[in-house]
């Protein structure tokens, strides 16, 4: 079981309120991702749930029981830290066994569970090494192993992949998702990378300046961002925002159109501009179009290889059904 409920939770450091009153429910078995720019309070929120920080006011319930004043060790949660936080003076085996040793399990049971976790995580060959002798990905697995042996009510991940290189990150992302499918335990995952959020989450919580901008499934957020912040944060490359006459035509203060929802051609289309930088990835092509009279640059994503070059004048057609409209306060219009 692992349902976590936050009820009017706030957190202040001195006079600075880093979490404004916040309500949130994470269902049992859910993979929830806290995402937001750095300094938005997502890590603080995770640490409040973990019990590593006290809430200033409000309550945290775990499985319906008030856990607000329960020390971290007693909350039944396991955490994987950004730096992995492995104990450098202990072997991998002892690292993974540490929580079991603290819980007072007997040696045989400790060993059984460590072996089991090591098998799941492909660490069996490394059990007698020290963390310093492992690669980044392996250390990450040890940290996860240390978390899973406890059979916690929920896993907390604090930007666990940010210290890995790009290729390894994709691999670990898949492994964590697999792990979630297999264990079916609640996971809360903090990241600043919206790609990780989109690919892993059942539920994304977008945070900004200590409050929740929007909660929803990845595709909910992609299709119907509640405001300009979420619209700009979710999706890559970023959504284009256009103000002024073009927006007013649709009865909005600002309109947003995603780069992948703009078609380009040599001659046809209501908008036109000059190609600046173009990025050819093979699978897609990104154009940064200037002199459109709409915004500084309009980013366009075209499928496959499209042969426009720097300085070419091109025409663009937005897909009318996926234009997002926002009012002067930045809120989504129906």
């Amino acid at each position, binding site marked *: 079981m692992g349902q976590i409920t936050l009820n009017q939770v706030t957190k202040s450091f001195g006079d600075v309120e880093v979490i404004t009153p916040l309500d949130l429910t994470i269902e049992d078995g859910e993979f929830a991702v806290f995402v937001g720019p750095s300094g938005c309070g997502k890590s603080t929120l995770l640490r409040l749930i*973990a019990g*590593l920080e006290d809430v200033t006011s409000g309550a945290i319930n775990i499985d319906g029981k008030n856990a607000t004043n329960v*020390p*971290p*060790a007693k909350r039944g*949660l*396991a*955490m994987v*830290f*950004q*730096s992995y*936080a*492995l*104990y*450098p*003076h202990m072997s991998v085996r002892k690292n993974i066994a*540490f*929580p079991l040793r*603290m*819980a007072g399990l007997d040696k045989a049971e400790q060993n059984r569970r460590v072996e089991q976790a090591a098998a799941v995580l492909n660490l069996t060959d490394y059990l007698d090494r020290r963390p310093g002798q492992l690669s980044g990905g392996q250390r990450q697995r040890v940290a996860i192993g*240390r978390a899973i042996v*406890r059979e916690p009510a929920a896993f907390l991940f604090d930007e666990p992949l940010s210290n890995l290189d790009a290729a390894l990150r994709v691999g670990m992302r898949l492994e964590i998702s697999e792990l979630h499918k297999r264990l079916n335990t609640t996971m809360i995952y903090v990241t600043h990378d919206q790609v990780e959020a989109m690919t892993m989450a059942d539920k994304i919580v977008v945070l900004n300046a200590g409050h929740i901008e929007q909660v929803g499934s990845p595709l909910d957020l992609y299709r119907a961002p509640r405001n300009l912040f979420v619209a700009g944060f979710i999706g890559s490359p970023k959504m284009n925002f256009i103000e002024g006459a073009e927006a007013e035509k649709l009865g909005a203060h600002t309109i947003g159109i995603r780069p992948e929802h703009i078609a380009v051609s040599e001659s046809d289309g209501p908008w036109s501009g000059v190609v600046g930088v173009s990025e050819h990835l093979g699978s897609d092509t990104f154009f940064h179009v200037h002199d459109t009279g709409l915004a500084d640059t309009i980013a366009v994503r075209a499928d496959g290889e499209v042969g426009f070059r720097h300085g070419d004048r091109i025409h663009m057609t937005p897909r009318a059904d996926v234009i997002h409209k926002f009012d002067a306060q930045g809120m989504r219009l129906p």
Partner: protein
Amino acid sequence: MARAVTTRRKVITTAAAWAIGLLIFFPIYWTILTSFKTEAQAINDPPLFFAFNWTLENYAIVQERSDYMRFLWNSVILAGGSTVLGILVAVPAAWSMAFVPSKRTKDILLWMLSTKMLPAVGVLYPISLLFVQFNLLDTRIGLVMVLMLINLPIIVWMLYTYFKEIPGEILEAARMDGATLKEEILYILTPMAVPGIASTILLNFILAWNEAFWTLNLTAAQSAPLTAFIASYSSPEGLFFAKLSAASTMAIAPILILGWFSQKQLVRGLTFGAVK
């Protein structure tokens, strides 16, 4: 520097560095050498550098006359006792400052260091008075306390700088894993900080061993350490160079050896972590 250096330049540097090194070391070398001479050879003009009859008789005489072993034992007790006591008090304090910093942590640290700057002579009389009052004069326990107190700020500082290098996340991980505060300090922090704790112990042992104000002023016969032992040679026995040298060698040898072994670790502690 990762640059190729010409052999010529390296030869010159080597010669200069060795010359200066030997010059600085010479007084110690000369003391050790003289301790193996007879009194006549010790004051021979020109000085004898090697061609003399090596003898151990000075050591025998010094031991017989001054009971070296008692002073040595006192030094070991005072330096060791004050260091161990200091570590026991300082580890929890340094843990608090390094891992649960508050707005006042910095001020407390600086204040602790400032007590180190209190001129000893300014409080000599009050301390002697208190020592008399509590029957601590010329006792080991009294001096252990004093040496512990004068070095405590340094111990706290050194441990603090070492502890600060241990990522807080590791201790938090231990806490998440169900470790109590005691287990956290015992199983995680202390083993990780072993090199730092070791060099703190070493430096403070050396400082306490060489402390020569309180040990001279608060001891008489019973608890006097080697600083007092050697001060008794200031006159007129000091004129007997060979015996003076033997006594000096006996007083500095233990700490010299200890210091050499730990010199690398000492640097960081000495600078309070301010120079990396």
